[in-house]
Each structure stands twice: as C-alpha cells, then as structure tokens.
C-alpha cells in the first residue's frame, strides 16, 4: 500500500514584502522625526485645547520643574550673539567678574538654574558636564531677591527692537507660588504677554468652543 506522500515544502519564505513594509515604516519615521533638544530636566507639561505652535526662535524659556526649581534658557539658534549680550549684561549688572572663556561657555549652556553666586562655578564647567551638576534653581520666591528679574531684564536689552516671546514651561506637578513668582519677575519688567507651553488635548465635544468652531467652519 503506497504511503501518502506529503509534499515537501520549502522552509524559506519570501522576505520581499516584509522588507518593503519595514523600509516604508523606516522612511516614515526618518521624515517625521524631530530630535528632542537636550533638556536639563524632564518636564511633563499639562494639556490644553490650544493648538498654537510654539515659537522656536527669539524666545526666552522659563522652566519650572516638578520640585519648583526655576530654569532660565534662551532660544536663539539663529543669532547666538544674543546669548553673549545677555551674559555680558548679567555679568556687569551683578558684578560677577566672569572670565571671557566662561562667558563664551554660556552659548553652549542650555539652561541656567543657579543663583548668581554660583554662576561662575557652573560656567567654568564644560557644557557636557553641566548636566551632571545638581542645580538648585534660580531664587524667585523671595520677592526682594527675585533673580529671574535680572535675567529677563538682560534678555529684554539684548533683544531690544525685536519681538521676544516669553515661554513658560511648567511641570504639571509644580505649585502655583513658583509660577506666580515667575510671572511677577516678568511683570516687573513690564512684560504682560506669555506663552504657556502645553501639550495638545482634545476639545470636549458639545462645549462652547466646539460649537464656536463648528459655526466658524460652516
């Protein structure tokens, strides 16, 4: 009795469609990706329904992290000379006696979160090592010694005649007094318009805003 012969199937599969898909996904991610700028702290921003884009140049970013430390950073990739002007102004207004090399280092420093007294120590470090230094935050809560005021005053001078955006990036867990102190520092500089950095949330359906958007669309 002849035994039933099982047809012998080859074990290799045709990988071509698999490769096609893989490279399609790969090219999508390569095009869609935008590298995260180096940040000294991890910030979880709260959500909001606003969908305005964030300005990336000519902006001062004030970061408040989850333990209420305040960071100051300048976003001016197009004109790094602005950063030099800011540090020179702070150096002279606070008489910090920073060396030229230390001031030049400020260009590479992403964010400053030290009182003026420790600024020399921070800027003496290589930018790569600055991330390892535990920065205590700019003192803001004492209204008599709100050092953020001086940083903003210096940036205002450096960006005189140009539009300067004030970005406030707060961690969802930071508390209101720190935020209020940041606003007070800005207010003392006669700046009343700020952009709060948030992540996008959906607009609740059937809310007034939703109905308004529908009306505008029609």
């Amino acid at each position, binding site marked *: 009795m002849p035994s039933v012969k099982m047809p012998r199937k080859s074990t290799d599969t045709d*990988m071509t469609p698999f490769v096609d898909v893989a490279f399609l996904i790969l090219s999508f991610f390569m095009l869609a990706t935008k590298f*995260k700028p180096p940040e000294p702290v991890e910030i979880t921003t709260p959500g*909001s329904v606003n969908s305005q884009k964030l300005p990336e140049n000519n902006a001062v970013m004030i970061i408040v992290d989850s333990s209420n430390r305040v960071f100051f950073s300048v976003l001016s990739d197009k004109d790094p000379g602005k950063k030099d002007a800011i540090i020179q102004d702070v150096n002279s207004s606070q008489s910090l006696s920073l060396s030229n090399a230390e001031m030049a280092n400020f260009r590479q420093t992403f964010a400053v979160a030290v009182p003026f007294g420790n600024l020399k120590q921070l800027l003496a470090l290589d930018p790569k090592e600055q991330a390892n230094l535990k920065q205590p935050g700019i003192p803001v809560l004492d209204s008599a010694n709100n050092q953020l005021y001086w940083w903003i005053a210096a940036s205002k001078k450096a960006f005189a005649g140009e539009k300067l955006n004030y970005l406030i990036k707060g961690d969802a867990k930071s508390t209101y007094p720190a935020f209020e102190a940041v606003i007070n520092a800005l207010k003392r500089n006669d700046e009343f318009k700020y952009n709060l950095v948030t992540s996008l949330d959906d607009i609740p359906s059937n809310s007034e805003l939703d109905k308004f958007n529908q009306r505008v669309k029609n």
Partner: protein
Amino acid sequence: MSSIDTSSGDSHKKGPGVKKAKKLSTRVDMTPMVDLGFLLITFFIFTTTMTTPTTLDLNMPKDIKDPKDQTEAKESGVLSIMLGKGDQVYYYEGKLVVDATGNNFKSTTFKGIRDIIIKKKAEVIGRHEHDPTCAKTQENAKAKKDPDWANACKDRDFIIIIKPDNDATYKNTVDILDEMTINQVRTYAMVKILDQEYELIKKTEETSGIK
C-alpha cells in the same frame, strides 16, 4: 550504427571538456537587511517626538495701585473660582458673604466647574439688556471680522476671577485657564487670593480631610 548517441536526450550537454557554467541563484538572503531595517525603525521610534508642544497665551494686567483706574465689575456677573489642594475647586458668585447663617462659598471639582461656568454664563446673558454701547461693541467686532460678532457684547458683564492658592498645582492653573477657552469666557483675570478666602479653603479642607 556502431555508436549510440547517448547525448541525444540531453541536448544541453556540450561535448566533453566543455565546462558547464554553474547556475547561480538570483535569490538574495534578505535577513540581515531586515535586521538592520528594524534596528533603525526602533531607533527612530524611540527618538521621535510625536507630541508637538503647543502654547496657551496668557495676558496679565498691569498692577494698578490707584483705585480710580481700576476696572469696575458688576457684582451680579462675577464668578470667583479658587483652586486648592488635591485638585479641589472652590467658588462663589458675586461677593463673598459670610454670616451667621452660613456663606455662599461652595466647593466642587474640575469636572463640576464647567457646568457652573456654563450656568452662570447663561444666567448673565439672560439678564443682558441691549443698549447703544453694546451696539457699538458689536459693530467693532463685525469690523474686525469676528465670526461671532452677534454675541460680542451679550456676555460683557460676565467676569471670572481666578485665585489659585499656595497649594494649587501648575496643572490646576492651566486647566482652569483652559476651561476659560473651552467655555469661551471673554473676560477673566488671575489675581492673588484673599486671606479670608484662604482661611475658608483651609477650613473646608480640614472638615473634608483633603491632604
């Protein structure tokens, strides 16, 4: 017929000494390519930032010391919202009244505050009386191509005052500002909390055990 042509069946066979070219397979082993492809995909997935940050505009008023220059608001159209510990929201309408019979100080959550804002807004709009200044506001809004110009002045008396206390988080603050956008509140201000209100919040927190 002394010799039999044995090669007749295999016509491709050349004579002896002619080497047969080795047939190479056209299939390439794709496995290393796939490996590399997926390695790169994982790399890009991890480095990519999909959530683009957006911004919420905040305009603060200049501090005015002189009471003469301060903007007056109709008491009936004001809703004061206070933010406390543990995502709690406190509110009262008009002026804060505290007397022997109790007070108009109420507490709610972020879920409940939207309905309170909507109710108050409807109430203020319902009480609205049309007058010449109102018509002017509407005209201005129309000239500025405001698509919602017809409603431009109906809610002019509706004002929300936001007072986060020292225990409120930044998230609470952004959430309540967002609530203003969601409910299309045109006039709102963020001010410092009064001592009396702060004490009331503390008392409420104690009785309800919010830490």
